[in-house]
């Protein structure tokens, strides 16, 4: 029994020891929990915060582009979009099919999305939404919203999209935005330190970011872009966003707005007036050089480019024979034809080679060397001085005047007017055209200048190439009697490159003669656009000059057969019709240049068009005080001068 007792005794003791050891272990666990949860609590709370709060890049809202009176030309709009979060779908193909049953998704896009989804799964990025459709119509958005809950992994949301409410009207002025390509990134980060370039690249990777690809969108990119901020997002371990914590400290800084000098109503009226014709029109404020309208038609719709244009759609634009991608107003180069005659006359008077009263006899042709140059008027104008030469647009008068003045003097005067200069004005695609002279010909063609070419130069043909913008500037400078300003398109925004380029004064007396000639064209018997002088506003009249730009030479054989006007030949071979004008004739406020491609006659197509646009500008008072100016419209430089 003693043995038994000692065993029992020992067992009890050992049970106590074991229980005690257990108690110690338990106390150890509790102590450790106390350490973690009470003593070190703050450290782990901070770590928990770091864990689940992520700062996501928040793209800035791109600045708007507004017209002279603050009407939006490029802004942003909330648009519905549908995306798929691959990790939340069970069967991607089925999910896509169910979306396609609700809204229209092209088959080729479905195929591409299926590939994208499997790629994202492979890259373990299946929590990143993949966009199925942008720009949902209201009906589609509503329908998707109702059914999204039934389709797992589908997300329907509103997103900010660049929008061009005026559509085609400003395509060539504003250009468009697009997702930044590698080339864009390379261009934008050019010259940046590596870390800054990297940040820029990250910013542009955001699905809502766009960069200006063309036009003012590209020129004013940095002004419009703004500064990115951050969104405080609560995420789970997989990186999925659970909720957002608002915090103004990190809000992105929106881009600045740009005001252009254009009156969008005038722009619209001008485009409507063009109808189906192709061509360009530029309206300038005679007193300030502000561009009030810059029309190039046909055009493309920049809204089509914002979310990427399909290859097929782009090909349609590119291959369209009417060239809707071509920025005619500032990038279209045309022979100015007779609209150039004021420049020749100015050069003649400036050089002193010709006096205004010098007369030339026109009997319909002009012999020089062993060749014959024709005047547009069969039978001739008879004896003409400078005034009548301009009014009747007598080619013979200008053959003779140009020959006397010489190519160098004409070219120099043309450059003083702003020809040969690419007026970018904050757009892309501007071209300078060409003002030829003997040095140019020697350099480019390796030949000497022939005097016969000077004759062609005198009537605005030959190698000479100008843009409608340059013609409008010429007209405005004549109308302002030589005031030396530059055209201006950016009312409020980044400075344009050519600030300070044109500073060439023109003689006021000579300009008055040019004005008188242009008045004669529209308002005196024998003027080539006699019927177009009346603006239909009671008092004010317009003064202008017609022009015809030859698309091809009319052969002698055709001339003999009486083929002079090409109404019976193919459209593509017909001449371009030009008209430059200012109004009102007695107190010029607006200058305009119109080119109607293959419009055949300056007086018959271009002049009525110009007249109607000027009529609208005057009636609408397009040049009134702009929204961006604090003071009254810029005071005319001539205001203080005695008249």
């Amino acid at each position, binding site marked *: 029994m003693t043995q038994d007792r000692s065993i029992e005794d020992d067992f009890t003791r050992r*049970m106590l020891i074991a229980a005690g050891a257990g108690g110690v272990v338990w106390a150890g666990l509790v102590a450790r929990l106390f350490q973690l949860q009470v003593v070190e609590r703050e450290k782990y709370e901070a770590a928990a915060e770091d864990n689940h709060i992520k700062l996501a890049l928040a793209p800035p809202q791109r600045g708007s582009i507004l017209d002279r009176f603050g009407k939006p030309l490029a802004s942003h709009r909330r648009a519905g979009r549908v995306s798929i979060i691959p990790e939340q779908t069970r069967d991607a193909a089925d999910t896509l099919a169910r979306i396609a049953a609700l809204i229209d998704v092209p088959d080729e896009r479905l195929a591409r999305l299926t590939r994208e989804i499997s790629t994202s799964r492979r890259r373990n990025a299946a929590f990143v939404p993949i966009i199925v459709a942008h720009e949902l119509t209201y009906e589609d958005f509503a329908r998707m919203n109702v059914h999204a809950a039934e389709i797992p992994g589908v997300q329907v949301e509103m997103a900010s999209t660049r929008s061009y409410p005026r559509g085609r009207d400003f395509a060539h002025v504003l250009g468009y935005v697009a997702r930044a390509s590698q080339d864009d990134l390379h261009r934008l980060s050019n010259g940046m330190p590596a870390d800054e370039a990297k940040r820029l690249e990250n910013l542009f990777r955001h699905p809502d970011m766009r960069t200006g690809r063309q036009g003012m969108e590209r020129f004013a990119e940095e002004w419009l872009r703004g500064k990115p901020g951050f969104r405080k997002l609560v995420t789970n371990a997989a990186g999925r966003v659970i909720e957002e914590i608002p915090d103004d400290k990190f809000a992105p800084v929106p881009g600045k707005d740009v005001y252009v000098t254009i009156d969008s109503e005038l722009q619209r009226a001008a485009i409507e007036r063009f109808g189906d014709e192709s061509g360009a029109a530029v309206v300038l404020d005679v007193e300030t050089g502000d561009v009030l309208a810059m029309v190039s038609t046909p055009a493309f719709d920049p809204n089509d480019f914002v979310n990427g244009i399909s290859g097929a759609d782009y090909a349609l634009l590119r291959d369209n024979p009417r060239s809707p991608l071509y920025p005619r107003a500032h990038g279209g180069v045309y022979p100015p034809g007779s609209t150039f005659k004021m420049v020749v006359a100015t050069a003649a008077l400036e050089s002193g080679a010709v006096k205004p009263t010098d007369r030339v006899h026109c009997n319909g042709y002009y012999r020089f060397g062993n060749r014959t140059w024709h005047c547009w008027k069969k039978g001739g104008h008879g004896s003409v001085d400078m005034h009548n030469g301009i009014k009747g647009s007598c080619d013979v008068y200008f053959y003779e005047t140009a020959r006397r003045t010489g190519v160098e003097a004409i070219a120099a005067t043309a450059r003083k007017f702003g020809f040969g200069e690419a007026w970018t004005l904050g757009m892309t695609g501007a071209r300078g055209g060409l003002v030829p002279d003997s040095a140019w010909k020697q350099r480019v063609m390796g030949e000497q200048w022939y005097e016969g070419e000077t004759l062609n130069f005198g009537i605005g043909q030959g190698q000479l190439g100008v843009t409608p913008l340059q013609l409008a500037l010429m007209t405005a400078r004549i109308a302002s009697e030589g005031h030396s300003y530059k055209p201006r398109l950016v009312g409020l925004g980044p400075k344009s490159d050519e600030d300070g380029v044109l500073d060439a004064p023109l003689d006021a007396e000579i300009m008055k003669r040019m004005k008188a000639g242009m008045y004669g064209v529209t308002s005196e018997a024998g003027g080539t656009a006699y019927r177009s002088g009346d603006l239909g506003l009671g008092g004010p009249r317009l003064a202008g000059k017609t022009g015809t730009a030859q698309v091809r030479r009319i052969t002698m054989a055709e001339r003999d057969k009486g083929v002079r006007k090409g109404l019976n030949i193919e459209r593509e071979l017909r001449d371009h019709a030009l008209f430059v004008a200012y109004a009102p004739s007695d107190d010029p406020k607006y200058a305009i240049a119109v080119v109607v491609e293959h419009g055949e006659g300056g007086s018959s197509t271009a002049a009525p068009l110009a007249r109607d646009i000027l009529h609208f500008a005057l009636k609408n008072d397009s040049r009134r005080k702009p929204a961006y100016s604090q003071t009254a419209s810029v005071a005319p430089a001539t205001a203080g001068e005695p008249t």
Partner: protein
Amino acid sequence: MSRDGYTGFSRGEARTRTATSLSFETMGPLRKLAKLPWGFILLIVAMALTGAAMLYSSAHTNPGESDLWFLQLSRFGLTFVMMLVMALFPLSLWRTLALPAYAFTVLLLVLVEVVGVTGGGAQRWLQVGPVAVQPSEFAKLAVTLALAWYYDRVITPRSGRFVIHLGALVIILIPAVLIFKQPDFGTTLALIASGGVVIFLAGMSMRVILGGVVAGIAAIPAIYFSLAAYQRERVDTFLSQLSGDATNALGESYQIEQAKIAIGSGGWNGKGYLAGIQSQQDYVPEQHTDFILTVIAEEFGFLGTTALLLGFAVILGWAFYSASQSRSWFGRLAGAGATATVAFYIVFNVGMVIGLLPVVGMPLPLISYGGTALLTTMACFGLILSAHMHRDDKLSSTGLI
């Protein structure tokens, strides 16, 4: 009968009940059920319900896992019935089953070695029809039973001698070696630890035990290098975080780091049910199985974890006390061994989650999601209850008295 007067565990109560116990064998099962210690059982049910609630919290937002809590609760219902049935088993039945169960388990472990299914870098599972069985889990109970059976036979008044414990060591080591080879380091340790407790209680010389512990510590390098690569990595991670070295946020250390963040950010009273950010957003891997304590800690804070550990302490303390009340060595050692088995689950799990032990892959009894561990745990409770109900059985065939 000179059992009275022993220190600590008073047996007076047990003796006064001897008269009723004598007629116990003749009781109907319903009356027997009514005699069960329902306070203890209710505490177990409360723990299981807590576990289901925490499972819901940890997995309800995950697609495909939102019903886990219900599945686990259903499993609990089944194993609960099993536990009650087991509680009614007379100890003699347990003892009769002990050796066959042990032999069967060893056979299964050998089978796992030969035809087992590999998963998670270890060969632990046997595919039986649609069910994957993990024999190493059964081994915990089988070894406990076998040890109780063994000591019940060999303990005599001269049993202080070392030799009789050698048989017990063999009983432990055969399955331990097989499980270690799978490899499943955690279960091996738990098996040796709870087996060790039984040997200790059976009276192995303190000096020998001390020597064993010293030898075990000396063998640590050898064990370390015999571990599988992933296990060694876990130990390395554990050591580096213990020494306070900066841990990278990947792999094993990521799990421990996130677990510590979840636990620590719970603070005094937690963020509230379903409001734990770490838990709700899946920062802690395996948070519905082995790391479910992080959910409790984050959502109910220090008060919650302490209450949980207190609940376990009450369950284990009562079970241990109840085992000590048994008259038979089988009842004592089986009850204590089962208690130790559950206790080591808890210690290993909690120790691992709070960064005191290497990650060994051990679930938290009654709380973690998982079927096999629940089955083992509930069988242990069944055995404990049976030992309690039959604490006055003398089990005549033994040579104790």
